[in-house]
Structures are given as C-alpha cells and as structure tokens.
C-alpha cells in the first residue's frame, strides 16, 4: 500500500450510497483503503464519460429546440467541480460525437474546432469561478444566497456571449472578404439564435448550476476538484 504517497487516493464510504472522496495522505493513513478503489485518473475518465453521456442525451432530447442546451451548464459544472481538464475533456468529447452525428447536419473539421474551442469557454469559466471567494462562500456557507444566482448567471451569460461571437464569426470566416466582415455579418445574422442561447443559459446558470453545486457539496463530491499536491 502506498501509505506515504502524496497523491490523492479514493476511499469508499458505503452508506446508502457510494461517495467517492479524494483524500489527502493524512486522511488516508487513518482510513484503510479498499483494494478495488480505482486510481484518480480512472475516476476522472469515468466522470468525463458520465458528463459527456449526460450532455449528449440532453442535446438529442432537445434537438427540436434550437440553441437551448444543458450541455454548456454540464461542461461548466464539470470544470467547477472536477477541474479544468475534466471540463475541457467533457466539452471536446461531447462535440466530437454531437458534431458528426447530428440530424441537422454534421459540422466540418474547421467548424468543429471552433465549436470545441468555444465550448472550452464554459470550462474556463467554471474552473476560474471555482478559484474565487464567491465559490468558497457558496461551498462553505450554510445558507444559499440570492447573490450566487446573479454571479453564476452573469458568468454563464458572458461565457455564452464569447461562444456565440466565436462560432458566429467562424461560420462566416471563409464566406466573406475579411475577418472583420465575418465578425459583423456573423454577429448580426446570428443575433436571434444568440439571444435564445444566451437567455436560456442565463436562466440555467443562475438556477440549475448553483443548485447542482450545493447538491454536490452535500454528496461531498466537491473535493474531487484538481488541486496541486
């Protein structure tokens, strides 16, 4: 057993549910670890798979409602709870499937690269917000404050704006005479779609995202975030 390892290890608490907690070496020394606990990298891969599956399932379920997707909030949550790498992996793997297997037409590789880059904005927002005092307040306070919704909603809105600007620009990049034209035409022609996307994400990020984080805190899943050893 690697009792002295500085690496985080997982332990299982088998109550009515299974809770996986990445523990530090000190805690590990006090709690014997079952032999079958997978290493953290396997846990992270499993988390990516679960989040990507959720994102894909909800994307296909909402295929009839253009630009209203839970995927963005899921990528944000994955990054907030489990770190930037997990969030980026969820966004990239989801788009790798959804971009090619899509009843509305598949994206070419160039557009797909922009879509994945845009999706990473949500991962950056989640991982970035996690490092702020507001996130610490949310994770530590006993009562949920309305201010959390405003903060999460604004962060979600700005990440969505960045995503829409980038992807609308990319849609016109090779159809116009200059990148500036592509930006202006993309912003104007994509405005109705961007508005629906931004308002739906504003609502989702201000309601579902903090609620999911509070739920994760109750299940002690928030300690799975990336921390330096």
């Amino acid at each position: 057993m690697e009792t002295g390892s500085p690496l985080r290890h997982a332990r299982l608490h088998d109550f009515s549910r299974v809770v996986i907690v990445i523990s530090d070496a000190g805690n590990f020394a006090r709690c014997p670890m079952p032999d079958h606990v997978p290493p953290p990298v396997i846990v992270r891969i499993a988390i990516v798979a679960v989040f990507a599956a959720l994102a894909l399932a909800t994307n296909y379920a909402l295929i009839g409602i253009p630009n209203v997707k839970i995927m963005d909030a899921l990528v944000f949550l994955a990054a907030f709870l489990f770190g930037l790498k997990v969030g980026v992996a969820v966004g990239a793997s989801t788009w790798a499937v959804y971009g090619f297997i899509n009843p509305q037409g598949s994206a070419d590789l160039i557009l797909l690269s922009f879509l994945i880059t845009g999706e990473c904005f949500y991962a950056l927002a989640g991982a970035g917000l996690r490092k702020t005092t507001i996130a610490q307040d949310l994770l530590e306070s006993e009562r949920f404050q309305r201010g959390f919704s405003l903060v999460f909603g604004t962060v979600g809105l700005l990440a969505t704006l960045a995503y829409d600007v980038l992807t609308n620009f990319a849609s016109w990049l090779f159809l116009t005479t200059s990148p500036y034209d592509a930006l202006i035409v993309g912003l104007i022609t994509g405005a109705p779609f961007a508005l629906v996307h931004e308002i739906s994400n504003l609502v989702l990020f201000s309601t579902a995202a903090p609620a999911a984080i509070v739920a994760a805190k109750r299940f002690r899943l928030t300690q799975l975030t990336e921390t330096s050893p």
Partner: protein
Amino acid sequence: MSSAPPSRNPLFYVGLAAIIVIVVTAQVAAMYQLQNLFGAAPAQERIPVNTLFNYGNGTSRWRNQTDVPSDWSFYKLTTTIAQTETSPTTSVSGQHYVTGLDGVKSSGPYDYWTLWVFCQKDTAWATSPVGADLIKMKDGDAFAWYYQTPPSTNPATWDPPVPGALKVSRCSS
C-alpha cells in the same frame, strides 16, 4: 488591512446586473439591425418578384414577376406559389424550416432545400444569410430554392441553383 471581498459589496451585484442588461440589449439591437437589413418597403405596395425552383432532378421551374404585397416575407410568397411542407418543430423566433416543396421532400439529414438570393450588382447567386421568413422582398428581387445533397453544411461547397451560374459568398452592398 484586508478589504472585504467584492462579493460582499452591493455595488458588485449592481455591476453584474448591468452586465446582463448590456449584453441582452446588445443582442436585441443586433436582431433589430438584422430586421432592418431585410426591411420591408412601404406596406400595401405590390412588387414583382421572380422565384426559381430547382428540384435537383434536372427539373427547374421559374415563377416570374409574381405580384406580391411588399410586406410579405419570402416564406409567405413560397407558400402561395408552391406546395410547401415544413418541419413540425418550431424554430427560433417562429421561423419555418422548409422540408418539402411541390412534393420533393428531404429524405435524410444530408439532402435539403437550400435558399439562394440573386445579387443584382454581382449578377451572381449567393446563399441567403437568413431564413425565408426574414427575407423582405424588393422590386425585381429574384430568389431560388434548390434541392441538393451538398458535401457539407458549409454553403461555400454548395452548387448554385442555375448550373454554370456565378456564385458569390454574399451580395455586394
């Protein structure tokens, strides 16, 4: 001396609310600008419009000089001159996704009706940057519906509705 975190300051939340208002207002303004770009001529005036249907099977049909009220959208014109079928799911802003015209229907995700605008200055065809519902027509405008199976969703790879005709990415202003 350590200062209080910004989250404890009421002005911080006022700033966040202001950001939300600014972003949403900017998007609404962009949408308004979009409608102005394809804005209608004065109401009740009647204008001639030419429409081409290319069924993708070697058959084409022109409906020339159709006399329509200037406040109609091109979608409304399409429904009056062709048997139009749309997707049952509602699209953004109540727009329609045309799936079939005169009995020629999309049989899969990779073949569909593409919408084209004839650019008078360029004497070339360009794919419409907006759906048929958002196109407001002007005197002498020409549009085309072309059923095809393009290699990708990128309009640059689509064929123009008239074989051999010029194609531009967008009309010169």
